[in-house]
């Protein structure tokens, strides 16, 4: 596999995944906001709550359409561009994807039709049930895709089979209850709830700033600030951190994003900000807070967090052991009856992936030099600079959003949010923040897994399809072209309906009824 093919395949996956992830978080949260609004409508019978459900539902629908469009790309891409990955781990990875379709996609996609078209044909409680099932479906889909993704980070419950030349499932329960997947699920859906709350909060604030549909906006603001406060706390408190001590992939990621070059005595200090120097493998300077890293990362005062140098040393041993595994595997593939080779393979199986990683640098292990080995060892740690700052930007945005929701919640309790123009302006200004935080979060989680597609098992380099770089340039250009047009179209509609506000429902109860006929 040539480097440019691998790089282009990664770039295409990153572009399409980051783009898909512009629409997913809003969907994950909006469904629950719609459930809350409609529940109030069913319980109180107040018309304004049905109007809120329908209006915010309209914006939700515009977003959902692109979520669906770009989601199919993700499923196709494992097969089209990551064929060896699909073969090598399909036995494990395919199952949650298929179950996601059966359990979640069918549910959300079937009931979203009735959500939009069933208002006149269903009783109020039945329509609420439809909305609820749709919400459940979207959130279950996040659960299954994160079970699949969690396994990429922490591949539990599977074993290599030399006859079929792939990983095979041995413990389905371990796959489901992978602590990494659990932590990711809570963190990701909470981030989605924050995104949707910010969306409703910002647009409602804008109506209040303009003095239009103020009653409608005030109620929407209240729902968003309560839901947003709870979610922002959840995203930070139950954040990803709890998952970071589990498994080596997360330890490597943690060391890189905290720029922890060496193991410190427990509990380790936290680098609030620092200047990581990758050449010298140290921080030129750092602002440290004692004990904090150890406490957050391990929830204990005695557990050590390994530093980059210590992880590298361990990986060097694993690569050396991996060489034995790859050699034995070649013998077993050549002569399945070779019991001695099978015994050696069995003994070094856990490090097979590290042997495969070295294969990216040298085809024939007889030609391994100390320099090549060092190169392979160095490649086991993702670059520190983007990890360190990517993580910090995400966290900083998270705290800014939390502050916004605290202020919003307090003022909505006091019932005077429409007069606090500074708050309304702040909320409007924060509209892009959750999207930025989500994208940085995705980056830290997935770039931080490099150089692996499946940590310790399958290097990214070996995962791609046998295509030409020309194929990739063509398809990448196609995706960028299509996605640019779709984004423009989506934004035009989103802005049009957000500006017009609930008047777009043509009920005769709101401002801007005549501004646009449709």
């Amino acid at each position: 596999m040539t480097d440019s093919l691998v790089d282009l395949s990664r770039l295409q996956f990153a572009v399409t995944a980051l783009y898909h992830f512009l629409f997913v978080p809003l969907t994950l949260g909006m469904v629950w906001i719609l459930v809350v609004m409609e529940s109030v409508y069913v319980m109180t019978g107040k018309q304004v709550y049905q109007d809120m459900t329908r209006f915010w539902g309209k914006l939700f629908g515009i977003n959902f359409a692109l979520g669906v469009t770009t989601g199919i790309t993700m499923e196709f891409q494992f097969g089209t561009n990551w064929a060896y990955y699909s073969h090598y781990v399909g036995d494990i990875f395919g199952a949650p994807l298929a179950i996601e379709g059966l359990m979640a996609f069918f549910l959300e996609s079937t009931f979203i039709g009735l959500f939009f078209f069933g208002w006149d044909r269903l009783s109020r409680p039945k329509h609420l049930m439809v909305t609820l099932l749709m919400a459940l479906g979207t959130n279950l889909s996040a659960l299954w895709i994160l079970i699949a993704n969690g396994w990429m980070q922490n591949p539990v419950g599977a074993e290599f089979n030399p006859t079929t030349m792939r990983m095979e499932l041995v413990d389905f329960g371990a796959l489901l209850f992978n602590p990494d997947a659990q932590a990711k699920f809570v963190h990701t859906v909470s981030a989605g709830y924050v995104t949707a709350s910010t969306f409703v909060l910002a647009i409602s604030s804008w109506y209040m700033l303009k003095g239009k549909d103020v009653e409608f906006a005030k109620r929407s603001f209240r729902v968003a600030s309560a839901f947003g406060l709870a979610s922002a706390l959840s995203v930070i408190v139950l954040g990803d951190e709890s998952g970071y001590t589990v498994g080596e992939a997360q330890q490597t990621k943690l060391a890189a994003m905290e720029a922890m070059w060496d193991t410190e005595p427990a509990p380790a200090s936290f680098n609030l900000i620092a200047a990581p120097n990758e050449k010298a493998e140290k921080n030129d300077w750092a602002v440290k807070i004692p004990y904090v890293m150890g406490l957050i990362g391990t929830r204990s005062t005695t557990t050590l967090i390994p530093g980059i140098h210590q992880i590298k040393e361990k990986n060097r041993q694993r690569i050396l052991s991996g060489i034995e595994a790859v050699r034995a595997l070649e013998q077993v593939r050549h002569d399945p009856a070779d019991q001695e080779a099978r015994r050696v393979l069995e003994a070094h199986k856990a490090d097979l992936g590290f042997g495969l990683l070295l294969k990216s640098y040298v085809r024939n292990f007889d030609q391994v030099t100390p320099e090549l080995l060092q190169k392979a060892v160095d490649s086991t740690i993702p670059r520190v600079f983007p990890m360190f700052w990517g993580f910090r930007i995400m966290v900083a945005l998270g705290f800014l959003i939390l502050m916004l929701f605290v202020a919003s919640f307090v003022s909505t309790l006091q019932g005077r949010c429409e007069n606090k123009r500074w708050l309304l302006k702040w909320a409007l200004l924060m509209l892009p923040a959750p999207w930025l935080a989500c994208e940085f979060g995705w980056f830290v989680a997935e770039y931080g897994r490099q150089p692996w597609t499946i940590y310790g098992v399958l290097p990214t380099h070996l995962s791609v399809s046998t295509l030409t770089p020309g194929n990739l340039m063509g398809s990448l250009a196609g995706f960028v072209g299509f996605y640019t047009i779709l984004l423009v179209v989506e934004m035009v509609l989103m802005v049009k309906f957000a500006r017009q506000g609930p008047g777009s429902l043509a009920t005769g109860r709101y401002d801007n009824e005549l501004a646009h006929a449709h």
Partner: protein
Amino acid sequence: MDYPTLKVIWWVLVGVLLIGFAIMDGHDMGVGTLLPFVGRNDVERRVVINTVGPHWDGNQVWFITGGGAIFAAWPLVYATAFSGFYWAMLAVLWALFFRPVGFDYRSKIANAAWRSTWDWGLFIGGAVPPLIFGVAFGNLLQGVPFAFDDNLVSTYSGSFWQLLNPFALLAGVVSSAMITFHGGVYLAHRTEGVIQERAMSSARWSGLIMLASFTLAGIWLASGIDGYRISSVVDPAAMANPLGKTVVRQAGAWLDNYRHWPLTLLVPALAYLATLITLTVLKARRTGLAFILSALALTGVIGTAGVSMFPFIMPSSTSLASSLTVWDAVSSQKTLFIMLVATLIFVPIIIAYTSWCYRVMAGKVTVAFIEKNEHSAY
């Protein structure tokens, strides 16, 4: 449950999911294909679109789940077919892009050019995927140029243009006509007046084209196209290793199953019989019954392709031993079993709530309905 049984069950289940896809997503793709022709003005087109408006999204999941099931049950097929047919798959994907945005965005702006653009988008999203799937099946029946190395890395040595050979294009015609037929029947069921008349006439024509091209393809397959046959002893309980067998290519090998198990001839017979009865009951305007029958007809057509090839899924024309079969392209016994349990639990539930949704939205979509729901309808 033993491994050989699970392997055969999964051949049936993938068939069920693909046929489910053809019945459910197929009818709304057929509606998309017919959209520019049976809807001659904006309101008529909105009527056509709204017959599938509340359902197309759920229906599309048959496709996504079919793909996911192939990934989980036949990972090598998923990997080899999707990467080998790279440009064909991207063409399907990009055509599908037009559907969610076409349905949801089209009527949100009252501008003739905007709406007409999305109408053609819905046409592309409806017409292109069935055509390409048909062409793909046409290529599977002839064998596909791919080979595995010792580590099971697959290399495809053909080009996109090679896929468009005469037999494959004929298979594409079968598939397109079948989906248009099915969509026409559905549209006749959900509309009235002039739109219904046009839908019925489209269904008649496409049904006849489907039968003619299906017959032609059958004759061609029996007389002019070499089939594949496993020439080594098959151990159905063996671990999945596609390189562990030998394969020969022989004229008439695709008729083996019909010779060994004459009852399988009922499958192509179903295609003919169900299509002819559909056309008859359609004339009597029993449109609901016609829809069930046309679903049976396409079960017969797709089933015929599957039965002819069994146990092959994806034969290789350049490296015979690399051919993928039901016995050696599959996941482990454990994964097949878990996926079987998941399918048996969820498919009945899905069918139940999908039926409920169709019942809630039942009845004719009319011009009056569109005019009344100007702002909320698609």
